[in-house]
């Protein structure tokens, strides 16, 4: 038995050593490499000013072209929309932005059926994992309930999220491979025309969303402006009118563009997303409204 336990001990020692080594090296690479995700970009930003910050899901990432916004308004802008991102993700992003001394004048937050969801999206949480030892990130993750296994077992956080921050992403970071979404432009337009994926809105919109409230409080504490908006959907989406009506009752001053392109269906990539033509037109419309408001 003694010989067996010694053998097992040796294997465990090899595994533990490798895990510690990998934990340190992966963390280091993700910290110092050129950013390949918006989280990495934010963590490396500091003492920067943006007039407008756009937050939301793919309907922000794919729809808001900051070049157009800048052209119309003359203001600087950054699009921090993340595909599949939740409002919880956006709340964390905004806190990280603030923690890194990035100042802003106005935040645009995209709302729709995401108003019903809470917590962090799996992908966003995974993207935060390499930075678990950064005090701000750790604090955020502790708030949402960081698994003990991810916290205390070295390298386990990378193994558990290998599709997002695993070996492949590590190599891509080391060789500085261009990411799918150009995080410097921060606008990932869709190309093509279609009306597939006709999703449906939930029948009931929740009365409140604590993360929206948290974002509103943070922006108010900085004495800045928060503007909510809803991006366009194709008319085939079930329950759209009713849900947006409910949402408008709960969120005062919402800029509702959900039916903006009901007569312009060639602006859609699919039922929930605009293509590049639609995105640029939509960005222009938002910018012009913003300009009118300033006047």
């Amino acid at each position: 038995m003694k010989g067996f336990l010694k053998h097992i001990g040796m294997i465990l020692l090899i595994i533990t050593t490798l895990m510690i080594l990998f934990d340190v090296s992966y963390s280091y690479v993700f910290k110092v490499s050129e950013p390949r995700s918006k989280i990495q970009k934010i963590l490396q930003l500091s003492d920067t000013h943006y007039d407008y910050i756009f937050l939301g899901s793919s309907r922000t990432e794919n729809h808001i072209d900051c070049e157009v916004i800048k052209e119309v308004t003359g203001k600087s802008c950054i699009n921090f929309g993340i595909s599949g991102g939740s409002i919880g993700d956006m709340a964390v992003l905004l806190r990280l932005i603030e923690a890194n001394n990035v100042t802003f004048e106005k935040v645009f937050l995209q709302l729709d059926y995401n108003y019903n969801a809470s917590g962090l999206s799996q992908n966003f949480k995974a993207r935060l994992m390499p930075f678990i030892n950064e005090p701000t990130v750790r604090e955020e993750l502790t708030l949402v309930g960081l698994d003990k296994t991810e916290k205390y077992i070295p390298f386990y956080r990378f193994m558990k999220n290998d599709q997002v921050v695993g070996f492949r992403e590590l190599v891509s970071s080391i060789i500085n491979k261009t990411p799918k979404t150009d995080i410097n432009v921060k606008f990932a337009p869709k190309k093509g025309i279609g009306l597939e994926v006709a999703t449906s809105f939930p029948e009931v919109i929740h009365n409140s969303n604590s993360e929206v409230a948290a974002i509103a409080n943070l922006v108010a504490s900085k004495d800045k402006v928060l503007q909510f908006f809803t991006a366009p959907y194709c008319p085939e989406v079930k329950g759209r009118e009713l849900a947006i009506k409910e949402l408008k009752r709960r969120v005062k001053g919402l800029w509702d563009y959900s039916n903006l392109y009901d007569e312009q269906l060639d602006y859609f990539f699919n039922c929930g997303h605009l293509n590049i033509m639609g995105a640029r037109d939509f960005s222009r419309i938002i910018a012009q409204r913003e300009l009118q408001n300033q006047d």
Partner: protein
Amino acid sequence: MLFNSLEFLIFLPLCFIVYWFVANRSLKLQNVFILVASYVFYGWWDYRFLSLIALSTVVDYFIGDLLSKQDSASSRKRLLLASLIVNLGVLGFFKYYNFFVDSWITAWSGLGVEMHGSTLNIILPVGISFYTFQTLSYTIDIYRKKLEPSESFVNFAAYVAFFPQLVAGPIERAMNLLPQFSRKRTFDKEQAISGIHLILWGLFKKVVIADSCATYVNSIFDNYQDHNSLTLLLGAVYFAFQIYGDFSGYSDIAIGTGRVFGFDLMRNFKLPYFSRDIAEFWRRWHISLSTWFRDYVYIPLGGSRGNRWQQLRNVAVIFIVSGFWHGANWTFLVWGALHALFFVPLLLVNKNRRNLDQVAHSSVLPSLKEFLQMGTTFMLTTIAWVFFRADTVGIAWEYFVRLFTSGNFSVSYLNIERYSIEMLGLIVVLLLFEWFHRKYEHPFVGRFIWIKISLVCLMLLTLGVFSNHQEFIYFQF
């Protein structure tokens, strides 16, 4: 509970400690502990289906006991029949009910007769095909007077539910495994170490090879209409390695776990992709199932005796039944039928037993002839695997039509954001490991054992798929 889960990583050492340090004073206590641990292991997935294992255990234990006391041939036959009806009845209901109802309705509607029947929302209990065949071997062997019934109910129940091999085999014969529950087990360092090495190697095959292949396979098979010839070819090859890594990996972990507890389970895979013909492939692939069918179906049918027609019939029956065992879908039947088709020429020219030794057993590399034979056998098995993987026979057929007509052999970029050929690198690593250790069960032997262990651990940690880990494919059978 999955072998590649954190739960099992805790469960296994806990069981080891209790088994060797607390229950080691009494064999009975060790067997009771194995039984309890096995039920916990299975119940972790769905405790409701423990009742099916318990039913099968109770029925076969008592039928086995009665069989040994009966001298009358007709009574013995009736008892055996009762065991077959209960075991195959439960298996048939859970696994094949919907298939037969659907096929019945489809067959009649093909003749223009509108039929109405309702399928049920039946959950297939994990591992039912495995433990059913295991308990059947017990009653059949007692009926044939090759085995004495178990005197201890606990031993028999532990044999049926033995957790390392309960849900995906190897399908252990009562004659091999049951007596091990009656023998005093003392800790054997070498046996336990070889068990740990097998577990490590099995994990590598499952987590690094099979689960990585699965990412590519799912992307290619789900969008086969959009892919070119090279990608579809790679998809088929990747599935061949996915199912091999998945199932042989499971078997290795099962055998290794058994050894850690002092049991010897039969080897289930012997490097099947180094086979030189289909007959050799079937002596190396899922050995516990193929020998089960050989002993309980093929030989009773007459085996290789009788005229050519009878021999061909027996081969066809065994392969088609084997296909059907895998699942209630025509795709599995076609898979079995294809293997029968590949096997028949060997039988007709009496060459089905010519490659009984290990390929290139006295040289480092295979001869050109052996290499071509292995390549041809792999190609044939891969053709059959496409039917095994596809959702319907029609889809498998369309897959091949597209593969042979696209004519485009450029490397494509898949929707998983990877190039289609990337996975080949890992497959080459596996093949090199296996080729240069083909005389052994796993590569952790010889001079560089710790370097090899370190390398495998390194690949396991960095290249293994943990976030999206897949259940073992054979759980569904």
